[in-house]
C-alpha cells in the first residue's frame, strides 16, 4: 500500500511535467476533436494512477503514459464500434478506421497556431500519430512502434503515406479535407 501511494505521487508529478505533450498527443489520437481529446486526456491520467505500481521510476514516463493513452483510445474505439453495431475489429484496423469515427463528431480546425501542425492533425490518425511521435517528438522508429503497439514496418509505411500526403498538400496537388469542405460552403 505504501509503495502504491508513493508511486502514485510520482506518477502525479510526472503527469504534470508531461501535461502539455500528453494533451497534444491526445489531440492527435482524436484528430483534433477537443471533447474526445479531453476525455482521453483525463482517462489516461486515471489509468496511469491505477497502474502507478507498474511504472519504474527512472524509465521514460512519457513513453509509458503515451502507451496508456493509445490503449485507452483503442478500447474506446472498439466499444464505439460495438455500440454502432459494427462488431469488434482488430487493433490495427481500428487504428486506421478511427479517423472516420472521430470525424463523425465535431472536428475542429486550427487547434494549433502553426498551420503545419494543423495539417498533421488532418492526416489519417495512424499517420498523424506516427508523424507526431517520430518527427515532432523525436522518438526513434522502434520507440514509436512500441508506443503505438504496431510493428516497426507499420510505422514506416505510415510515415511514407503521411509524407506523400503532406507533400501533396504543400504543393497544392491535393486539397486537405477541411479546405475542400470550406470551398463547398
Amino acid at each position, binding site marked *: 500500500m505504501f509503495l502504491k501511494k508513493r508511486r502514485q505521487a510520482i506518477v502525479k508529478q510526472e503527469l504534470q511535467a508531461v501535461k502539455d505533450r500528453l494533451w497534444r498527443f491526445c489531440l492527435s489520437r482524436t484528430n483534433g476533436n477537443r471533447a474526445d481529446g479531453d476525455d482521453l486526456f483525463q482517462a489516461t491520467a486515471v489509468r496511469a494512477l491505477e497502474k502507478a505500481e507498474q511504472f519504474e521510476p527512472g524509465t521514460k514516463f512519457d513513453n509509458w503514459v503515451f502507451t496508456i493513452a493509445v490503449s*485507452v483510445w483503442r478500447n474506446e474505439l472498439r466499444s464505439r464500434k460495438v455500440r454502432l453495431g459494427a462488431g469488434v475489429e482488430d487493433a490495427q484496423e481500428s487504428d486506421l478506421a478511427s479517423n472516420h469515427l472521430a470525424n463523425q463528431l465535431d472536428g475542429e480546425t486550427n487547434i494549433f497556431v502553426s498551420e503545419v501542425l494543423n495539417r498533421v492533425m488532418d492526416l489519417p490518425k495512424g499517420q498523424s500519430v506516427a508523424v507526431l511521435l517520430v518527427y515532432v517528438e523525436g522518438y526513434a522508429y522502434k520507440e514509436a512502434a512500441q508506443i503505438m503497439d504496431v510493428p516497426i514496418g507499420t510505422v514506416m509505411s505510415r510515415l511514407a503515406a503521411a509524407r506523400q500526403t503532406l507533400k501533396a498538400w504543400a504543393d497544392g496537388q491535393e486539397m486537405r479535407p477541411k479546405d475542400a469542405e470550406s470551398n463547398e460552403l
Partner: protein
Amino acid sequence: MTRWSDEQIIAYLDGKLDMEQGQALHRDRQFDDELDAYIASLEIDTNELANLSQEMPLDTPQFDFETTSAAKTSAKTPLWKQTAIAASVLAVFGAGFLTSSLLPSNNPPPANWVQAVAEYQMLYSGETLKLLQKSDDQTAQEVAVIGRKLDIILTRSDLNLNGLKLRRSQFLTFKNKPLVQFAYLDDNGVPISFCIIKRENKPDQPMKARAMVAGQNAAVWSAGEFGFVVIGKAKPSVIRQYAEELKAKMTSL
C-alpha cells in the same frame, strides 16, 4: 522500380539508413526515374516538424485527480464513462465546456481573462449582432462611454477596421477588473471581437497568436496597464491583421 522498401526509403530520407545502403540507394536513384520520382514525392521538411516540438495547444486541460479518483471508485462504471463524467464535471472544453457554460455554478472559472473572453465569444451568434442596428452617433457615444470605464479616451475611428462593422460595445468585468468588448461582424456574418482589460502595470508583451476553444483564433498582446485580444473564428492570419491595425491605433492610450 528497384528493390528498395518504404522502410529503407524513409530511413534514407531521415538520414538513418546505414552509410553503405544510403550510398547504394542514392546511386539507384540517379538511374531509376521511377524511384527518383517516388522519393521526391516523399520529401518534406522534417526540420520544420521538429521545430514544432515546443508548440503546444495553449489551452491544456488540468488534471482533476480528486474527481477522477471519485469516479474510479464507482463500481461497474466503465472507465471511459467514469472519466467522461469527470470530464463533464471538469467541463473544460468542447461539448463538456458548452454544457458548463449553461450551468455556471458547476463550472470552474476560466483561468485567465483571454479564456474567459473566448468562452463568452463562443456563445456569440452572427445573427445576434446582425439584429443590432445603430446609428453612427449612437455607436460613437457608446464607444466614448465605454472608454471612460477604462479611464481612456476612445473614439469611433480608433476602432475602425477594414471589412468589419462595429455592432456592439459592452462593459464587462473579469475578477473585478474592467473588461470591455467591441463586437464586430465581418462580411460573411462571422463575429470578431476586440477586448481590452485594465490590469496592473506589468511588462509589455508582444503580440502572440493563440488557438482557443471551438476553433477560435486569437491575437493577444499587452502594453502598459492594458491587455488586448482580438478573437474570432477566422484564420490566424486574418485575426493577426486586425490585431495589428488595432495595435497601431492603441499606442496612444
